[in-house]
């Protein structure tokens, strides 16, 4: 009898331990983030585990994947597969390509509205911004813009879409109701990325060849400030701002400086550069993780991702991915 009691007690204990382990695992699983990186030359995306910071899977998605975002319900990864002239949708749970969306020719960057209904796509070769009905899986409208459209940003209220055109050197302000251009602001050469501040009062636009960040007042359509960068020992030409992420909590902006192989931390109140952080080579796009502790950068020449500890202001890890890593998206 004693033996049996002992045995069932032992069994219970194992059950309890298993439950605790399961709960710990679950908790970890819930907190764990996943990072998705598009590899332009390898035609795939790398899936990185947010805890171990290692690549756990590579998914073939189509030719020349660049812009990458998550759907608003966080259930799908949406990728511009530029050379296939369409958008590829990957399921987050199965990590498999699920279906394709039409995008117009050569889609590069895109933005989704807050309701998750429309995707606005920049068609680089076609001088168009295409509006795609995400659920209806069809093109709603094509808006003619400047030559080589690229950067895409939506105002917090969703009423204005900003698109930059690389060769026309403009930021176009598009009314999302009428889908007409309301104003154009001339910026420095080769504008790449646009970002609205959280309060919707300013738009930050990077000019890769001009080497500057223009801060635009979206009501007056005027540039109120231009940020320049100067890094000791580096020529002015090698400082080529591309990616912009605004950290509204800390009031800091992170700017990727391309072949300068650095990101700049800019104070959003004073517009002063507070620090340059060395990353991998040709750093282009950036993403802040969900709790705001880490910044992930895509480094196109060194074929890796730099993980920056935002508080310590330094790179804590480099993660090798595919060739020409281009865009990055993060799921909580």
């Amino acid at each position, binding site marked *: 009898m004693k033996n049996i009691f002992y045995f069932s007690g032992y069994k219970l204990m194992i059950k309890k331990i298993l439950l605790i382990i399961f709960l710990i695992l679950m908790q970890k699983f819930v907190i764990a983030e996943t990072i998705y990186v598009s590899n332009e030359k390898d035609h795939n995306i790398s899936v990185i585990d947010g805890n171990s910071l290692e690549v756990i899977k590579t998914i073939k998605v189509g030719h020349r994947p660049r812009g990458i975002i998550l759907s608003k319900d966080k259930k799908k990864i949406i990728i511009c597969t530029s050379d296939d002239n369409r958008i590829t949708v990957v399921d987050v749970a199965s990590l498999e390509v699920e279906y394709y969306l039409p995008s117009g020719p*050569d889609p590069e960057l895109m933005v989704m509205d807050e309701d998750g209904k429309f995707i606005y796509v920049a068609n*680089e*070769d076609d*001088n168009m911004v295409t509006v795609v009905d995400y659920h209806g899986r069809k093109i709603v409208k094509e808006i*003619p813009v*400047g*030559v*080589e459209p690229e950067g895409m940003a939506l105002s917090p209220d969703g009423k204005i879409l900003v698109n930059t*055109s*690389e*060769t*026309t*050197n*403009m930021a*176009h302000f598009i009314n999302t109701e009428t889908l007409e*251009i309301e104003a*154009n602001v*001339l910026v420095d*050469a*080769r504008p790449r990325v646009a970002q609205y501040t959280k309060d919707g009062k300013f738009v930050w636009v990077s000019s*890769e*060849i*001009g*080497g500057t960040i223009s801060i635009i007042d979206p009501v007056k359509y005027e540039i109120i400030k231009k940020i320049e960068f100067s890094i000791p020992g580096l*020529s*002015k*030409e*090698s400082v080529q701002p591309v990616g912009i992420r605004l950290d509204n909590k800390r009031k800091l902006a992170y700017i990727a400086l391309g*072949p300068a192989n650095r990101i700049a931390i800019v104070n959003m109140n004073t517009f002063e550069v507070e620090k340059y952080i060395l990353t991998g080579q040709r750093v282009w796009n950036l993403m802040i993780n969900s709790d705001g502790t880490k910044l992930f950068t895509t480094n196109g020449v060194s074929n890796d991702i730099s993980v920056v500890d935002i508080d310590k202001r330094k790179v804590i890890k480099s993660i090798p991915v595919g060739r020409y890593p281009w865009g990055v998206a993060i799921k909580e």
Partner: protein
Amino acid sequence: MKNFFFVLFFLFCNLIVPAKSENIQQIKIVHINRIIERAPTIYSINPEIKNNGILGSRMGIKDNNTTGKFTNQKFELIEKNIMPNESAKAIFEEFRKNNYKFFILNVSKDDFNKILSSDLIGESILINTSLKDNDLRNEKCNKQVLHISPSYMMVTDALTQFLKKKNWTKLLLISGTNERDKQFASSIKISAKKFGLKIINEKIWDFTHDFRRTADLEIVKFTQGEKYEVLVLADEGNTFGDSGNSFGDYIPYRTWKPIIVVGGEVLKPTSWHFAHEQWGGNQMQSRFLKYSKRLMTNIDFNSWLGVRVFGEAITRSKSLDPRRILVQIMDEKFNVAAYKGKPVSFRKWNGQLRQPILLVTPRALVSVSPQNGFIHPRTELDTLGIDEPDTKCKFN
């Protein structure tokens, strides 16, 4: 009666149309293109490139007009071919009499000199897309001329930097006999001195017969007994442009020693090549291919960039006054995106566009100069070509 209504209708139409285009600024750019009688080329399979340069200008106009839609500007290209028996100067002066101000020139050196001698230049701006002559950037410079085409000194500096980087420093120079070959040869001698390379010997290629059948024998003897690491060809081709070489293709693989050959079309320093894909280059290549139905040549690229420089300067200065436009172009902050990874801009001391130079084989890109490690207090791009202290150009 019917006719009367028709006339009324016609008058009415005339009334509406001008009212609509009232505040649109019209800008006319003239592309002058010298047609040459085609010299016999080495291989008959090399097709003649049709509309070389003009297709680049056309795309530049298209790009300018996409921007113009938002700035109320309309650009128009006037294309003019100069036939073999026609005078470039007379044609240029005809345009000037009709007050055309902006010119893209793809002409011969002789044409260019004659155009520069015209009394009707006035305030017009001339963009050179094809001539590499150093003297046009030195003694014969003109403040109204901008050179998008790199100079001989820029391309030989680009090639020599690459050789220096590889540590291939002992050169044998084989030079052709035409004026352009000689300029390339004299430039590479200056470049070699500048970057610490040694030209062991120089040989002149003055054979006139067709080498198709005898190259195997002759070139072995021609290169025998020389102590060198790299064979450099000064072979700038048969025409005034960059369309093909005259002897360079016979040299590789037929030398006495197993040796690297550069220059000519073998490894050519140039402003553009269709295999160039970096820094958005593939966007440019695919846009051009789609629009023009052929690959983009360096003259197409130079012409495209020339039209874009006019467009950018006019958009930014908001002016059609050539004096203001020229000030805008020569401004230190004026730079243009040219798909070459670095902003390109004009040197104020001679009107030359500073730009990276591609080193290419007929089908592939090998390297881009300036090479890493060649530094300059102003910009690394100024390690290529005639620098400010060395200039013999005096604008008056």
